[in-house]
């Protein structure tokens, strides 16, 4: 089955919800334990929303459905997300 795209495609929809860019974040698959970027997930867009599967074991990692005035985000396939953040800049006076 090859009718999927990369997790890169989730960047826009996730940016609408979160304050940081999430596709470069790494997550652990709850099913097989693979650690990889959100960008590497295989995303199927034929459903009413986006279904993102692990590139290692094909388990569903994330589901995102966008309605006109709200979104539903299901992250049950994800154990943990590691998100790089800028270090706080020291303020001197």
């Amino acid at each position: 089955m090859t009718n999927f795209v990369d997790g890169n495609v989730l960047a826009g929809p996730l940016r609408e919800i979160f304050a940081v860019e999430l596709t470069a974040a790494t997550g652990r698959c709850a099913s097989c334990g693979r650690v990889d970027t959100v960008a590497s997930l295989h995303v199927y867009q034929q459903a009413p929303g986006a279904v993102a599967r692990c590139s290692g074991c094909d388990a569903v990692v994330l589901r995102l459905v966008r309605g006109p005035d709200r979104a539903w985000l299901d992250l049950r396939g994800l154990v943990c997300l590691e998100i790089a953040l800028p270090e706080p800049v020291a303020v001197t006076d």
Partner: protein
Amino acid sequence: MDTRDETTTARTLVLDVPDWPGHLAGQHVDVRLTAPDGYSTQRSYSIASAPDGTKVELTVQRIPDGEVSSYLTGVFSIGGPVELRGPIGGWFVWRRTDAAPVLLVAGGSGIVPLMAMVRTRMAAGSRVPFRLVYSIRTPADGFYADELRSAGVDLTYVHTRAGPGPVGRLTAATLDSHGWPASLEPACYVCGPTGFVETVSDILVALGHDPGRVRTERFG
């Protein structure tokens, strides 16, 4: 706002986006079109240009029966309104401060975000060595041909339907000869249709490249 035909079926849109914050090579935008009756639809398009003030260039390949691409490559006229969201994406990007050698592998219109990397490298005066392997059906299907000739990148075309030269699909031998040895630890960027990207990334990993350094962008 201006347009440029790249091939008979692909067109570059030069957009002026007020308040554009700048972008990284490889990022994309989401384009939303809304009809008078309220029907609205959205597609993602890669940015083709290097960061340059409020100017953003997208190259759109017309897809048969594609409702958005047909509009953008056809009836969309200069000055026409279009709703953009972006820049988007933080993984499939090349930064001018990246020092590793770069291998770009494009299938068809997958060249677009890779061209942004080539242009960003040029604009920055970067000496980072770039190699580009570009698979197209025939020479007439290639985007940016003149610019690529003088872009300072090591360029190899693969023609799958009609040459000059041999005709056939990209193979492990192609990437072995025209890519970088895995021992140089290059950054690899692969963009194209899903099947193409799958094949190329499998070959690169088989040639010894660390999967973590093979970044992919499939467009379905």
